[in-house]
Structures are given as C-alpha cells and as structure tokens.
C-alpha cells in the first residue's frame, strides 16, 4: 500500500515537473529582445516596454512579452528601479539637510524625505530622529522629472532597528510578493517572520531569531533565482517546511 502511494506521488511529481518544463518552454518563446516585432496590426496597443512602428508593435526592452486584450507589454528581465507613487521602498539615509533627509533607494534619481513627511517634531538636530546610515521603510509620495519625494508618515513606515536586509533585482519583486501576496504570505507564515518587500528590491526581514530570518532570506532568494517556474509557491512551502522540521 505504502509502495503504491509512493509511486503515485512520484508520478504526480513527475507530471508537475513536466508541466513546469512545458510552461517554461512556452514562456521562453515569449522572450523578446529590443528591436523585435512582437505582433503586427493596428488593433494592438503598445504598452510598457514596447512602441508602435508603423503597423508593428516593437519591443524596446529585453523581457517577457504579454498580450492581454490587445494591450502588448514587455515585462523586463532586468533593470533599475524606477519609482512610482505609492510604492513601498526601503532605503538608507546618506545625507541630512536642514529640512529633511537624502535617502538612497537604489534609483537613478535623488530621493528626499522631508521633515514634514515624518512624525518628527521640528527639532534642532534632526539627525536625532533619523541619522546617516539608518535604514528606513518609506512610501513614494511624488515623482518629479528628476527627483523623488518620500514619506514615512503612515503606520508601518519608519526606521528599522534590527533584523536583516537582503536585496533582489526590482524585476523579481512581483514574483516574491506573488499573486495577491500569496508567495510572501507563505514565507512569512512558515518561517514566522515579519517581512517588508520594497518595490526597489530591498527586503527587510525580522524574526524571533537569526535562523528564521536566514530561512526567510533563503526562500526569497529561491524565488528570485527561479522566477519562471510554475507552482513555485507550493515548492517553496515544501522546501521551507522540510527545513523548519530540521
């Protein structure tokens, strides 16, 4: 009886693997390179990562092409973080001015957190509130042509004082969060950690102990390194549960 169950499990595992491989190959077909025509026809609309050239929709980024309701998009496989309003980001204070902090959020533009966007009362020495080197969880409040304004007013934003920080490519963030947050919720649940995923690729993890933090970090890296794999949420859950049992 045991043997039969084991065999069935192996068959199911093999089927899942095969399905994953097949879907990978499908996805590989949709990889486009800059300059490549994705689709032709005036019905289509060029979204992010592509432009219209005559009757063709042409990719301008290296990534995965998707077509939904005639909207053509290219999801890049790599790239620097470009700030968008309301994004949660994690950054480090690199300088202090008389009315705020200059924060590095790994974006090409200078980012500024004004004193007014925090719950600090105006003080003589604002470095007492946030100092150079401090890690902050913030939201993007405004994006101007060459600068970004941040805010740390809301609940859940502000300085982190312990735990660990890891970094992934910004293009992996969506995968790490998962559909409706399913992936990150799974990781948080099994490792019993608090995790804040910055859209800029920086991730803060806080657990009861270093082991749980490291395990969560490992799971995140697993997702970041295997983004195209289907059924990844399940696989990650299995992997973590095995390790936690140890």
């Amino acid at each position, binding site marked *: 009886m045991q043997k039969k169950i084991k065999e069935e499990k192996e068959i199911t595992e093999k089927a899942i693997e095969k399905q994953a*491989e097949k879907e*990978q190959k499908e996805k*590989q077909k949709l*990889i486009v*390179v*800059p*300059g*490549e025509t994705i689709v032709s026809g005036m019905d289509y609309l060029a979204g992010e*990562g592509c432009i219209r050239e005559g009757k063709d929709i042409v990719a*301008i*980024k*290296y*990534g995965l092409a998707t077509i939904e309701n005639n909207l053509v998009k290219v999801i*890049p*496989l*790599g*790239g*620097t973080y470009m700030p968008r309003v309301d994004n949660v980001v994690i950054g480090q204070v690199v300088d202090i001015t008389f009315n705020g902090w200059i924060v590095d959020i790994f974006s*090409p*533009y*200078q980012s500024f957190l004004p004193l007014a966007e925090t719950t600090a009362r105006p003080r003589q020495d604002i470095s007492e509130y946030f100092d150079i080197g401090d890690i902050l969880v913030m939201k993007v409040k405004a994006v101007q*042509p*060459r600068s970004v304004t941040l805010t740390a007013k809301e609940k859940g934003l502000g300085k982190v004082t312990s735990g660990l920080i890891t970094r992934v490519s910004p*293009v992996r963030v969506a995968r790490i969060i998962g559909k409706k947050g399913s992936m990150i919720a799974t990781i948080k649940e099994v490792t019993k950690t608090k995790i804040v995923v910055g859209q800029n690729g920086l991730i803060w993890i806080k657990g009861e102990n270093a082991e749980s933090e490291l395990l969560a970090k490992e799971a995140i890296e697993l997702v970041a*390194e*295997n*983004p*195209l*794999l289907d059924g990844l949420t399940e696989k990650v859950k299995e992997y973590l549960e095995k390790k936690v049992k140890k």
Partner: protein
Amino acid sequence: MAYTKRFDGRAFDETRPIKAELGVVENADGSALFAFGDTVAIAAVYGPRQLFPQHLQNPQKALLRFYYDMLSFSVKERKKPGPSRRSLEISDVATQALEPALMLEKFQNCVIDVYAQVLQANASTRTACINAASLALAQAGLPMKDLVVSVSVGKIGESLVVDLTKEEEDYQEGGKKAATDIAIAMLGKTKHISLLQLDGAIKPDELFKAIEMAKKAAESIYQAQIKTLKEISKKWV
C-alpha cells in the same frame, strides 16, 4: 596579391567562431562576454544611476560613458596598466557606436556606465567589446531601439576579408604594409552604420564591397546575439 588563402583557413566572408554569454559579472546590472575566436572581451553595465559631479549632468538625456581597456596580459607584449591614448579613442567611438540604439532621453541627468575589458587579444578587440556591451545593455533592461552589432572587415593583399586576426592586420607584401583594416558597427535591424574606422589603402568600390560583406557578417552576429538573449540560463529550469 598573394593572399589567396587565409592563415587560419577560413572563408573570406567567415567570422571566427563566436562565443557569447550573459551575466558574467554578477554585481553588474547587465554583463556579457563576447568572443571572436581567441579575441575575448567582457562588458559590464552599471546604470542608469546618479551622476556626480553635477555639472556633468545633462537635463535632456542620460550620459553614456564607455570605458575600453585591455588587461595587461591580454596581448603578447605587456600593455602598461592605465588607459592609453588608443584606449581613450576607442572608448569615445564605442560610446558613439552605441548611443543611436539607446533611448537616453528617458533618463535625464543620469549616467549609464559601460566597462569593457579585453581578456585576450587577437585583433578586432573593439568590435568584440561593442558586441559584448550591446548584450550587457539589453540584459540591464535599458530601453533600446535595437541591438548593436560590430565586426571588422579588411583588404589583405587584394582579398576582402571579414573579422581580421592580428596576423592579417600586420600582413605585408614586399616589406610594405598590405592590409586595410576597417572597424564597423551597425544597428542590428537596419544595418545603419554607427561606427566606422579605416586604416590602409582601398578604393571606394572595394570599400563598398567590404561594407556589404560586413553587413552579411553582421547579420549572423546579430542572430547569435538574439539567440544568446533568448536562451534563458539553465538555472531557471
């Protein structure tokens, strides 16, 4: 006159075997290795990122900086460390070779740094570097109108050839230089020329024949670049 068979036995319109690989420098935003036979180059891209000092910033578009250099031991006679005048010149023309493909207006005030190093040299080093850079820029997720493809062509004796080796570059007949060396870069799809340098002695009609040969070779290099980009790393399987 007498160059009827290439030193390495290749056909006149044949490039050396091409090797291309993505992600050779993990820290970089994008990186690649590109080789024509035993001329091997790597390129790494960092950017777009903030540009200091401020006075270098351009409010219209990003600054593209290309740094070309050769490892001291990449050549037969050791190259002294540090950029030579030749390196600076190549850095400059390579920047101009890549600019038309990039959409720099999307990143005003920023900088995109491309660092290219020749690991092993057997002529055609700038073309290998540009091909590597093109892949690295794509991998870095930069918006590009097209890929950039580069190859050398030349006239050795009376024969027009593609992808010169050092031996061909140095070819002499009767004690005099008998090689014309042309470096070309083009946009992959349109084959419009973004880099053109020539040294030697060649008639205009021969030059245009050589350019046609370059375009054909560029097409196979372009396909090789596309293939490399489309082959996702085995790690993802």
